[in-house]
């Protein structure tokens, strides 16, 4: 038999079946799940009709409300800022304990487990606990963001510490440095740009979170947004939405710009 390019052609089913069959299976599964949990196509069309009116209102924000919204917006920023700064400070402490090259295994593993638990709990759940303990308001929001921040940055920084060249730490040890000096010059110094970069990233995330947490009881722009929606004051809700978007956009650009600066210039730090 002579072999030509056509000889290598697979039958259609064998060629596409590997992809199409699982996709078809998943579609069926999704359809079944939608039926069980009560999501119907009909509802989508009913809702669309109703929401056009609502969307029209959203497109005409209440300009006079912007003045009132500056204060809550700043509140949100401050909640995120304080939560990120305290969170980063605590993360550093936890990270030192969660790094295998600094802490004995039993401390490292238990601190890592603790951080994992913190990450597993969504910030909203943490906030609900804290609101029960400390009451509504920015303080509970700051605490929730701090705890969430420790869960995430604690692990990231600990991983960065574990990747430090062991001989660098040894070379600081070898001149007779104390433990504190080893940590500062052999551990924190080399990863400082990473720490700052993580913190900026977390700040950006905290801004978005602080909006969500605001609605649950931490105050700030999120609360204004939530209140306007509940009171069917869509014009005001639209204004709050615009403010939120600006906030998120600005924080993302700012943190992105700063992180790039740290990476490329490096000389700043």
């Amino acid at each position, binding site marked *: 038999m002579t072999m030509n390019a056509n000889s290598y052609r697979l039958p259609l089913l064998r060629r596409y079946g590997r992809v199409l069959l699982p996709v078809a299976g998943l579609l069926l599964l999704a359809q079944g799940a939608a039926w069980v949990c009560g999501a119907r196509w009909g509802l989508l069309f009913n809702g669309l009709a109703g929401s056009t009116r609502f969307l029209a209102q959203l497109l005409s924000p209440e300009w006079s409300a912007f003045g009132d919204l500056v204060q809550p917006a700043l509140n949100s920023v401050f909640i995120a800022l304080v939560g990120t700064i305290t969170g980063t400070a605590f993360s550093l402490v936890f990270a030192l304990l969660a790094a295998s090259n600094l802490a004995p295994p039993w401390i490292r593993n238990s601190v890592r487990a603790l951080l994992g638990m913190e990450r597993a709990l969504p910030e909203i759940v943490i906030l609900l606990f804290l609101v029960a303990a400390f009451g509504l308001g920015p303080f509970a929001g700051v605490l929730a963001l701090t705890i969430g921040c420790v869960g995430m940055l604690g692990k990231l920084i600990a991983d960065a510490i574990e990747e430090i060249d062991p*001989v*660098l730490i040894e070379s600081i*040890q070898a*001149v*007779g440095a*104390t433990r504190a000096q080893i940590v500062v*010059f052999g551990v924190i110094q080399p990863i400082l740009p990473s720490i700052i970069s993580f913190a900026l990233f977390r700040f950006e995330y905290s801004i978005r979170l602080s909006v969500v947490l605001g609605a649950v009881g931490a105050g700030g722009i999120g609360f204004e947004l939530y209140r306007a929606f509940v009171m069917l004051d869509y014009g005001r809700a639209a204004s709050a939405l615009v403010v939120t978007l600006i906030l998120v956009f600005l924080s993302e650009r700012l943190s992105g710009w700063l992180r790039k600066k740290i990476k490329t210039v490096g000389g700043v730090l």
Partner: protein
Amino acid sequence: MIEVTNISKSLPDGRKVLDGISFTVRKGEFVGILGASGAGKTLTLRCLNGLLRPDTGSVIVQDADGGRWDLCTIAKKRLRQLRRRIGIVFQGYHLVQRLSALDNVLLGRLGQVSTFRSLFYGFTEREREEALAALNKVNIGNLAGARVNRLSGGEMQRVAIARAIFQSPALMLADEPLSNLDPSNAKVIMKLIRPLADEMPVIGVFHQPEMTARYCTRVIAIKQGRVIYDGDPKLTNQQLVDIYGAELEQLENAPVLLPEKPTIIL
């Protein structure tokens, strides 16, 4: 002076990596430790400043007041005090990349200033001048303000040597200080290390027999955790074969053993 007596070290699986190593090095000597990979050279060196504790044996060093201390049994705090006066240059520089050359040299005295003062870089004017003098001694005083990550490999290794000099050490150790350098830079580094032996014992681990033959005053060869040669730095081909193992015999006519040629043994 440093006296190493009969040090041994076993791995957890029972394999002996150091097996009764003894030697004494005095001021004025520049000792090169040679050996194949895994022979125990670097482990031996690590025992000489307490980074590694042998299972048995003793490593006696003298402090500034003439007191004799055994690094193998010494308390941690005292070890830290002794380390202030033991300069060590590592393979591949290991500097804090984000600090300037001068700051990296200043780190050499971390053990000699209070923790609080060092955390704020509270080094005195005099200490800064001495650090600069150390950089000048290795001919890179002009790079004092440059960030270390902008320097070349040879320059970084010189910063590391300046850091060790700045410690005003009573003993100088070097762990494969030439391993990342090209032959001409390697010679520069050897020329900088050699005169230090006038003031203190200098012990280095090397991979280049032709370099130790040229610059060292004495060579110690280690094989399978034992000292198999201790003496004149100029080795014969047969001695090199003994040190580096049988594979070398096939390379007998290769130029690797002649001085002035880059080594390809290891």
